[in-house]
Every structure is written in structure tokens, then in C-alpha cells.
């Protein structure tokens, strides 16, 4: 079966409109899909259950960081899994990118592959201007405070090996959106074999994160200390 050594972790919160499409698309390329229903108040879990994928339900909303942490903990418990793929449940990421990223990790023996929207011009022309500006500032912020040298900050699509997850990523302290900086920081701190991979993100979903949330992320990252 395809990609049986990988687990796709899909954190989802109130994604009943998108989860069906996301899972069906993922099923074409991946055998193991784990949906973390982060306390959704709609039918997200019910829809995912019907699609016969593994589901973990949080009793209430804890944040995307907590959802990913739960997924990674389950990932470590399975002896056959070698790569965890974090994949947004809102349908912004392309499954083909995840597929290519895990292949790249496998072929080149990488510990982590992180998606970037800023490697190719045709990939970032559709990003709203304000969001683009905030993302650029976030890249500088991560570089300045955490020495994280990535071209994209807060990209939800990443492939992480079992070894690095076990030794460096867990536990995740930031259970909100600030987890992305924490994961990048830990990856860089571990000096693992890391590569960025150009991906395209769709911005059709109106529930996409508000760029102003970057202020919260920056504050809590500094306040919590990574």
C-alpha cells in the first residue's frame, strides 16, 4: 500500500465543509490518516468517521498545537510509522505536495521537510497582501529571536521523521498557533537534516487565520520561552 510508513495528521476544528474533500484527496496517496478533531461543534468528527479514517477527539478546543501534539504522540506509538505529515484540515494544502515532500525525505534521508510558499513566485502571488507582509515580518522575527532561517513562517505542511519527533519536537509547549515557531525552532536547534520544499496554498477558505493573530503568536512565544 502507498506510503504505509507515513501518518498524515490532520488537525481539524469545525471543518465540516472541507474535511470530506481533504480526506478523500489524501486517501489517493496515503494509507494512514489520523484526524484530530479539536473539539469541533459541528459534524467534522461524524464526517471523518464515515470516511473510515482514524479519529481522536479532544473534549474541547485546545488549539492546533495541542492537536498536532496529540497526533505526534500517537504517531510515536506505532512501530511501522517513520514519517509524520502535518496537513491542515481546511483544505489549503495540496496533497501532491505532501506526497512529494515525504518522498523527498525518504529518498534523501532527511529528518524534516517544511513547506514554503515563498520559494517560487507563482506560489505566492495569490497570498493576500496583508498576509504576505505579516508572513515576511514573521520570518524576520523568527530569524532575529530564534535563529530560524526559513523562507516561510507558519506553514502547516511539514514532514517530520520519527527520530526527530521523539528526541526534539515533543512536548509542544505552545498549544495555539504559536506551535509553528516552536517546531521550526526545535528543528533548527536539533541541527537535523532539514529541507524546505516549495508548495502552493489555496486561500479560498474564509476561515483562514487572521494575520493580526501574529501579534498573539509573537507575544506568547516570547512569554512562554521555547
Amino acid at each position, binding site marked *: 500500500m502507498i506510503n504505509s510508513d507515513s501518518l498524515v495528521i490532520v488537525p481539524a476544528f469545525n471543518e465540516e465543509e472541507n474535511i470530506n474533500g481533504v480526506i478523500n484527496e489524501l486517501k489517493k496517496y496515503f494509507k494512514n490518516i489520523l484526524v484530530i478533531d479539536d473539539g469541533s461543534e459541528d459534524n467534522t468528527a461524524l464526517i471523518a468517521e464515515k470516511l473510515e479514517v482514524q479519529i481522536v477527539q*479532544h473534549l474541547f478546543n485546545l488549539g492546533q498545537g*495541542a492537536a498536532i501534539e496529540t497526533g505526534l504522540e*500517537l504517531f510515536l506509538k*506505532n512501530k511501522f510509522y517513520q514519517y509524520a505529515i502535518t496537513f491542515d484540515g481546511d483544505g489549503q494544502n495540496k496533497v501532491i505536495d505532501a506526497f512529494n515532500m515525504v518522498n523527498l525525505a525518504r529518498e534523501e534521508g532527511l529528518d524534516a521537510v517544511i513547506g514554503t510558499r515563498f520559494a517560487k513566485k507563482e506560489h505566492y502571488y495569490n497570498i493576500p497582501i496583508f498576509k504576505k507582509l505579516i508572513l515576511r515580518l514573521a520570518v524576520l522575527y523568527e530569524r532575529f529571536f530564534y535563529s530560524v532561517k526559513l523562507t516561510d513562517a507558519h506553514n502547516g505542511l511539514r514532514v517530520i521523521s520519527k527520530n526527530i519527533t521523539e528526541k526534539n519536537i515533543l512536548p509542544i509547549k505552545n498549544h495555539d498557533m504559536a506551535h509553528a515557531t516552536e517546531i521550526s525552532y526545535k528543528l533548527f536547534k536539533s541541527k537535523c537534516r532539514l529541507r524546505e520544499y516549495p508548495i502552493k496554498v489555496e486561500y479560498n477558505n474564509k476561515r483562514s487565520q487572521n494575520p493580526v493573530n501574529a501579534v498573539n503568536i509573537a507575544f506568547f512565544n516570547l*512569554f512562554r520561552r521555547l
Partner: protein
Amino acid sequence: MTTLGKVIFLLIVLSMYGLSFLVARTSSIKAIEKIFVIFFGLALLFSIIFSEKVWDLLPKMLSVGEATDSVLYLFIIVSTGVNLILVRKILELELRISKIVQHLSINKSFANIKELNQNEKDSFK
């Protein structure tokens, strides 16, 4: 405010914010926190019993114009520091609650796995 007063206030601000940043980290930090609480409690008691002397000494100690000013400055610093300590503690509590919820969710998920076939069961440690 004189330069000495500014230095004294800066030190108070830095120690308060530093404390709130480090709060709940180690037992020694918790001990310092308690010493602060005791110190401020005693200072309050002292200021009631010897109110006239305090009223006269406080502005001189902090190098500010009037005693009321110094009280206001100290109140702002201490209350902001206490707020930061509380925010920090709330964040720590949130993290603990999250851990409990995650633990429950994972356990429930494992209970479901047990109902699956033997192959899938075997793949988990």
C-alpha cells in the same frame, strides 16, 4: 524625578517583570515570590503604623517629588507585575488541562483500536 529615583524605579520594574517572567519555574523563584509578598505585606503594615514617617521618608527614598506620587508609581508597577504573574500561571494551568484532555483522547482512541483487527493492534507498541 531624579536620576537616582529613575534607577530605583527601573530596578523595581525589572525585578517585578523578571519575576513574573520566571514565575513557577523553580522552587527558588517561588520562594522569591513569597518573599516579595511578605515584604509588601510588611511594608503596608509599616505604612499604617508609622504613616507620618513613611509619608516623609518614601519620596526621599525613591527620589520623587511627593509621597502620593511614589505610592501611585509603586501601585502601577506592583499591579502590572502581579497581572503578569497571573497570566503566566493561567498559561501553566491551561497547559496542564490540555495535557489531561489529550491523555483522555489518546486513551479513548486506543480503546477503539482494541476493537480493530489483530494486525492493526499489533502495529501499536
